[in-house]
C-alpha cells in the first residue's frame, strides 16, 4: 500500500539494521532491504520494546492513574500526568477548575514544553545540525557540541533546567511529581517561588530567540538540502482554542490536509473514537492511526510542532507569532512539510512556552489557594493535551467501586508512526538509494526520525493487546498454520495456510 513499506520479495536482498536508533527516547530500530545495486526495496521503523500500562492500570483506583501513567516516560511525564488528570476531572465531574488550579496546570505544562523542546533541540538534534549529519560519529553528541559551541550547549542545558524548575515548584519534583490531582492541583505556588521563576526569564527568552535564528540560518544557508530533506506531504492535526489560536493545554482538535485546507475545522476531542481509527500492521508493535472517513491510505497525518503551527490560525504570544510567520514564509503560501522544519517549529514553541510562562507569572490568580473542585461522578473520562511531540489522548472507564476498567492511550509518537516511516523512506530514496552505505548516510535516516522527537517507549504501552502473529513453518519453509491476535485481543487461526 505504501511505497517501500513491503518489498515485493525479500529474496536476494541485503538487510541493514540501524539498531538502536540513537538520540531518541526509547528503543527503536530501522531496517533497510537493499539489492546488489544498493537500491532500497524496503524501509521500516520498528519499535522493539513494549510497556504494559493499558493493562496493569486496570483494577487500580482512578485517582492513582495520573501518578502511575506518567511513569510511561521520563521526558514528558507531565503530559501524561495532565492528560490523565483531565480525564479524571471528567470522571469526578469537575467541569470547571478554579482559576488558580487551571493556571498552575498551565504553568506546569508549559514548563514541560520548554524543558522537553530544549532537551530535544539542544541535546539530541543540535549535534546533527551544528556538527553535520555525517560528521564523526564519536563527536556527534552533546559533548561534541559543548566542545565546539560551548555557549549554545550551556544555553540548552540552562533552558531545560528552567523548565524543570517550574515543574519542581508546581509538582513537587522535577520528574514524576504529583502536582495535578483529579479536580485541581495539590499545591499552591508561593510568592517566593514565583519571584524566583521570574528572575531568569528575560535571559532565557533571548537565548531561545538565538536558537530560532540559528535554525533559520541553516535553512537560509542551505535551502536545497533543508527544504527537501525527508520531504513528503501529509495531513496535519493540532489543538486550537475557540478563536483558532494555538493552545497546548486545552481546546478542540483541528485537521488540515496537505494543502492547508480544513478536513475538520474543529472537533471535540471527546469524540475521537468516532473520528480516529488505529490500524495494526504485522511488522510493528506500534499502531498506525488514521482519520476514519479518509481511510488508512489517505487519512494518516502528522502531529507535533510543525503540524500545530500550521493548523492554528495564530500563536497567542507576540514574539512566537512573529517567528511563526517568518518560518511559514519559506512555504510561499503553501504549508511547510520539510522534515527538518520540525526543529524550527519546535524552538518557536519553546519561545511561546516562555512567553506564556511570563504572562502566567504576572497573573495574580497564580498565587491563589482555592485549588480543587468536585462534581457529579461519571463513568468515563477522556483527556487530551498537546504533549511536546503532539496530540496525546488518554481515555478511561471507571466502575462504581472506583476501579479503572478500560484504558486507551494514543500517544503523539503513535500518531506520527506513518509520518516517520514515510520520512525515512523519503530520506532512503533521496540519500541512500544506489549509494555505498556509510555510517554518515545511515545517520541521515536517524535524523529524519529525530526530527519528530519520537518517544518510542511512550508509544508502545499496549502489553496484552498488541497484535501478534505466530507461524508454523515446515522444513521446506512452507507455512502450515498461522495464529494471529488482533489489536482487539481476538485470536484467529488459519490452517494449511499459504
Amino acid at each position, binding site marked *: 500500500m505504501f511505497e517501500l513499506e513491503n518489498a515485493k520479495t525479500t529474496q536476494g536482498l541485503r538487510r541493514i539494521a540501524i539498531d538502536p536508533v540513537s538520540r531518541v527516547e526509547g528503543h527503536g530500530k530501522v531496517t533497510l532491504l537493499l539489492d546488489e545495486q544498493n537500491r532500497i526495496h524496503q524501509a521500516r521503523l520498528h519499535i522493539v520494546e513494549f510497556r504494559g500500562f493499558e493493562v496493569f492500570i486496570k483494577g487500580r483506583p482512578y485517582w492513582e492513574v495520573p501518578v502511575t501513567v506518567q511513569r510511561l516516560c521520563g521526558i514528558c511525564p507531565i503530559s501524561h500526568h495532565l492528560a490523565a488528570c483531565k480525564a479524571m476531572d471528567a470522571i469526578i465531574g469537575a467541569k470547571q477548575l478554579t482559576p488558580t488550579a487551571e493556571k498552575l496546570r498551565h504553568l506546569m505544562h508549559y514548563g514541560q514544553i520548554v524543558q522537553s523542546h530544549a532537551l530535544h533541540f539542544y541535546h539530541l538534534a543540535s549535534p546533527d545540525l551544528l556538527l553535520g549529519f555525517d560528521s564523526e560519529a564519536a563527536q556527534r553528541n552533546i559533548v561534541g557540541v559543548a566542545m565546539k559551541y560551548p555557549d549554545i550547549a550551556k544555553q540548552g542545558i540552562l533552558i531545560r533546567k528552567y523548565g524543570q524548575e517550574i515543574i519542581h515548584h508546581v509538582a513537587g519534583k522535577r520528574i514524576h511529581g*504529583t502536582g495535578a*490531582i483529579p479536580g485541581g492541583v495539590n499545591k499552591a505556588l508561593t510568592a517566593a517561588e514565583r519571584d524566583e521563576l521570574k528572575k531568569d526569564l528575560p535571559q532565557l527568552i533571548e537565548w531561545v530567540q538565538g536558537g530560532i535564528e540559528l535554525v533559520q540560518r541553516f535553512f537560509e544557508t542551505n535551502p536545497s538540502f533543508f527544504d527537501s530533506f525527508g520531504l513528503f506531504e501529509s495531513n496535519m492535526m493540532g489543538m486550537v482554542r475557540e478563536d483558532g489560536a494555538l493552545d497546548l493545554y486545552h481546546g478542540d482538535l483541528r485537521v488540515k490536509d496537505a494543502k492547508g485546507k480544513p478536513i475538520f475545522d474543529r472537533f471535540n476531542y471527546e469524540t475521537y473514537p468516532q473520528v480516529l481509527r488505529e490500524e495494526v500492521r504485522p511488522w510493528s508493535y506500534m499502531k498506525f492511526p488514521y482519520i476514519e472517513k479518509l481511510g488508512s491510505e489517505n487519512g494518516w497525518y502528522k502531529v507535533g510542532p510543525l503540524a500545530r503551527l500550521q493548523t492554528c490560525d495564530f500563536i497567542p504570544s507576540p514574539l512566537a507569532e512573529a517567528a511563526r510567520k517568518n518560518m511559514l514564509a519559506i512555504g510561499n503560501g503553501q504549508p511547510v512539510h520539510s522534515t527538518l522544519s520540525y526543529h524550527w517549529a519546535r524552538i518557536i514553541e519553546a519561545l511561546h512556552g516562555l512567553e506564556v510562562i511570563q504572562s502566567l507569572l504576572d497573573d495574580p490568580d497564580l498565587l491563589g489557594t482555592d485549588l480543587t473542585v468536585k462534581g457529579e461522578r461519571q463513568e468515563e473520562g477522556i483527556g487530551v493535551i498537546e504533549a511536546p511531540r503532539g496530540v496525546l489522548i488518554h481515555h478511561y472507564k471507571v466502575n462504581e*467501586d472506583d476501579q479503572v476498567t478500560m484504558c486507551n492511550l494514543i500517544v503523539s509518537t503513535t500518531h506520527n508512526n506513518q509520518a516517520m516511516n514515510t520520512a525515512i523512506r523519503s530520506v532512503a530514496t533521496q540519500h541512500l538509494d544506489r549509494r555505498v552505505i556509510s555510517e554518515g548516510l545511515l545517520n541521515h535516516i536517524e535524523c529524519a526520525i529525530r526530527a519528530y522527537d519520537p518517544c518510542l517507549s511512550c508509544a508502545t504501552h499496549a502489553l496484552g493487546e498488541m497484535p501478534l502473529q505466530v507461524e508454523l513453518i515446515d522444513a521446506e519453509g512452507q507455512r502450515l498454520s498461522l495464529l494471529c491476535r488482533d489489536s482487539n485481543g481476538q485470536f484467529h487461526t488459519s490452517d494449511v495456510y499459504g
Partner: protein
Amino acid sequence: MNSENTFIIDGMPIPFEPDQTVLQAALKAGVFIPHLCFYPGLRPNGNCKLCTVIINGRHTSACTALARSGIEVENNTPVLDDKRRLLLQMLFVEGNHFCPSCEKSGNCQLQALAYDLEMMTPHFNHFFPSRKVDTSHPEAFLDLNRCVNCGLCVQASREVDKKNIFALSGRGRASHIVINTPSGKLGDSDFALSDKAASVCPVGAILPKRGSFAVPIGQRIYDKLPISSQTEFLMTRKT
C-alpha cells in the same frame, strides 16, 4: 536522674516509667529504634522484628521487652542495622511495593525505614505475588499488595473498635489479611473511616478513597525529616 529508673542504650542513660517497654522509653527519650508494627496505644506484639535490639547480650524485640533498671541495650550498630535492612528487603520483595505510584509514598513507614536504613536495592528476587485489591467499601479501599502482615489493623479493630473486621489467615508465607464477612469484602463489613483500624496501617494497604496525593511532595510526614528524627511523632501519633 534516678539510676533505679534508667537503662542504657548504646552507652546513653534512658529514663523509663513503670510498665514501659524499651521501645517506648527510647522513643520518649528521643532515641530511635526502627519499627513497623508498634503503634502508640496498642498492645505491642513483636510481629515485624525490625525493633530487634541486643539486651544484655540477647536478641530481643524492643517493643515487647519491658524496660528494667540497669539493662544494657545495643541498638544503633552496623550489625543490627544490616539485619534490619535484610528484614526490610524481605518485606519489599514479598509484597508488591510500587513506591513510584503509591499514594502512601512520603507517609509510608516501610519506605521511610528503607531510606533511613539506606536500603539501596531489594537484593532478593521479587515474589510478585498475586494479591487482591478490595474497593467494595464506599469510603476506603484495601490493597493487599502493600500489606506487610503487621497485624495492627487486626488488633485495632478487635481491641479498640470492638468490631473484629480484620484477621490474619493462613500460615508462614501464605499468611494474609482476611475480612470477617461471608463475602470476604470490606464493603460488606461495618468498617468506617473513623475506626482506629483505618488509621494505623504503616503502609498503604488501608487507605481512604479519593483523598490521595492531596498533600504535595515536600509536605508529607517523612519529607520533612527522616523517620529516625521523628521519635516524638512516632510516640504521640494518634492517626
